[in-house]
């Protein structure tokens, strides 16, 4: 039985100036050690959810539990120590003049002792493969490197959960791949539970599980295979279909039968090869 580290129970939230709910009766669990992708159109409530999860806003209705703690004004500081966030814009999250100062900043705020601090800064930068950049100035780094430093800053605080709020959307393809590779490693080493809020469906296809948001509500949840078999329905929801699924569909429409839907190009190539070429 998987252990839920975060539980949302009938959560609703409405911004003061708005006449509509940004989130309405949202309930789901997030399990320990999983990589959960939350997808949805602009305005579907994804980012509101991120704000609620670390107590930047409190829901008007419903309850959020993080690692057994009910989220409220008394527990918010404890919970923020459990959840780290990486935001969209790599240029908005730097305070230090060097990479290591920047990672140390969060630790200083938490009153961590110097010896421990030095060790943790180095250790977390090595985990994101930025150990060679300790004394670099952050603004000389590429977008992907900046986001990896931001992830290291989060890791240094030893949270249980990391939320990536569209953390790859401003990066070029190479930067995006660097960040995703880092997240994959962290997950494999079972360091963190990863919640990634994203528009990038190729990225979501690599997650363990997906939640699709629509107009402030959970539209559906499932494995990437299950979600992407929804096909055209996803396009109606303002989303898209990953490339291998589109390609496979085109083959089938042209009369090239395939045994299933593939989320990876390699698998699709292999099936074509075994069924049609390797005879």
């Amino acid at each position: 039985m998987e252990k839920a580290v975060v539980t949302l129970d009938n959560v609703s939230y409405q911004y003061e100036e708005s006449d509509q709910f940004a989130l309405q009766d949202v309930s789901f669990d997030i399990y320990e050690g999983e990589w959960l992708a939350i997808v949805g159109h602009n305005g579907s409530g994804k980012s509101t959810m991120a704000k609620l999860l670390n107590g930047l806003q409190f829901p008007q209705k419903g309850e959020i539990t993080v690692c057994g703690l009910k989220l409220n004004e008394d527990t918010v500081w404890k919970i923020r120590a459990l959840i780290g966030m990486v935001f969209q814009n790599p240029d908005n999250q730097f305070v230090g003049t060097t990479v290591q100062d920047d990672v140390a900043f969060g630790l200083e705020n938490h009153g961590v002792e110097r010896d421990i601090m030095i060790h943790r800064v180095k250790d977390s930068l090595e985990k994101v493969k930025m150990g060679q950049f300790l004394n670099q100035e952050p603004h000389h780094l590429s977008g992907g490197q900046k986001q990896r430093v931001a992830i290291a800053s989060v890791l240094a605080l030893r949270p249980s959960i990391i939320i990536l709020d569209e953390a790859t959307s401003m990066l070029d393809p190479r930067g995006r791949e660097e960040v995703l590779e880092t997240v994959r490693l962290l997950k494999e080493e079972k360091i963190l539970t990863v919640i990634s809020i994203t528009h990038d469906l190729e990225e979501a296809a690599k997650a363990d599980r997906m939640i699709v948001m629509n107009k402030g509500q959970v539209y559906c949840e499932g494995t990437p295979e299950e979600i992407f078999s929804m096909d055209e329905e996803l396009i109606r929801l303002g989303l898209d279909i990953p490339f291998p699924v589109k390609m496979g569909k085109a083959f089938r429409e042209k009369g090239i039968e395939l045994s299933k839907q593939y989320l990876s190009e390699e698998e699709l190539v292999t099936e074509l090869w075994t069924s049609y070429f390797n005879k």
Partner: protein
Amino acid sequence: MDIVLQQVEYRYQAKTPFERIAIQDVSITIPSGVYLAIIGHTGSGKSTVLQHLNALLQPYAGSVSIGDRVIKANQKNKNLKDVRKRVGIVFQFPEHQLFEETVEKDIIFGPMNFGVSEDEAKRRARIALKQVGLQEEILEKSPFELSGGQMRRVAIAGVLAMDPDVIVLDEPTAGLDPRGRKEIMDMFYNLHKERNLSTVLVTHSMEDAARYADQIVIMQQGNVVKQGNPVEIFSEPEHLMKMGLDVPNVVRFQLKLQEKTGMKLDTIYLSIDELSTAVREYIRKDNRL
């Protein structure tokens, strides 16, 4: 209006110890009415090139012709207003530049700044608003009450209301969801056709470049490394991949399939539909279907 860059070089913080060459020997011709995409990694010099297109930056060496105006290195270039009126730039996250009390005031700010009368500017605002797919009712609202997608459209309308001949787009879909991305890209393509604009798209997206552009320029480390039409550009995909650049999904897929199966198609296909048809024909000819 043609734009021609000839052997343009630009250095940031020139003649200081921090001098750094941003672009070098860049020659690009953008004929009137063309849709050109400039592709490259962060730091490849794309944005520096972009800022030369309406003389926000002026070359350190070489020259930039914008219509009949020539901007050369090492000379004072005054009265650039006319150039800037004719080349409208939509910067990344243009909604961050909104500042007025109402949508209408925001849209007419640009044209009025270039000497257009208020009545004419308001007339243009209505046309531009319609072209970006927004309703007139929005004119009296504060831009800050709008959704992110609407704000971006208002900002774009502000550039269109200047009635430019050339429109330059710097990653216009960053941060939008897939539907929003497609809507904005289709909108620019329609504007390109309807207004007979020249369009310059600066992007990371090989998909968008392959789909919309007539011409593609690839930049790396401050140099133009390749230019041509999409088929020419992607017909040597291995070369691009060696440079660490992406190719469109469909091109990459064709390569993987050819490598694994030994199939050899005689051309590179840029759409899923074309590729799947070509593969079917290949298999048929081989009597395997």
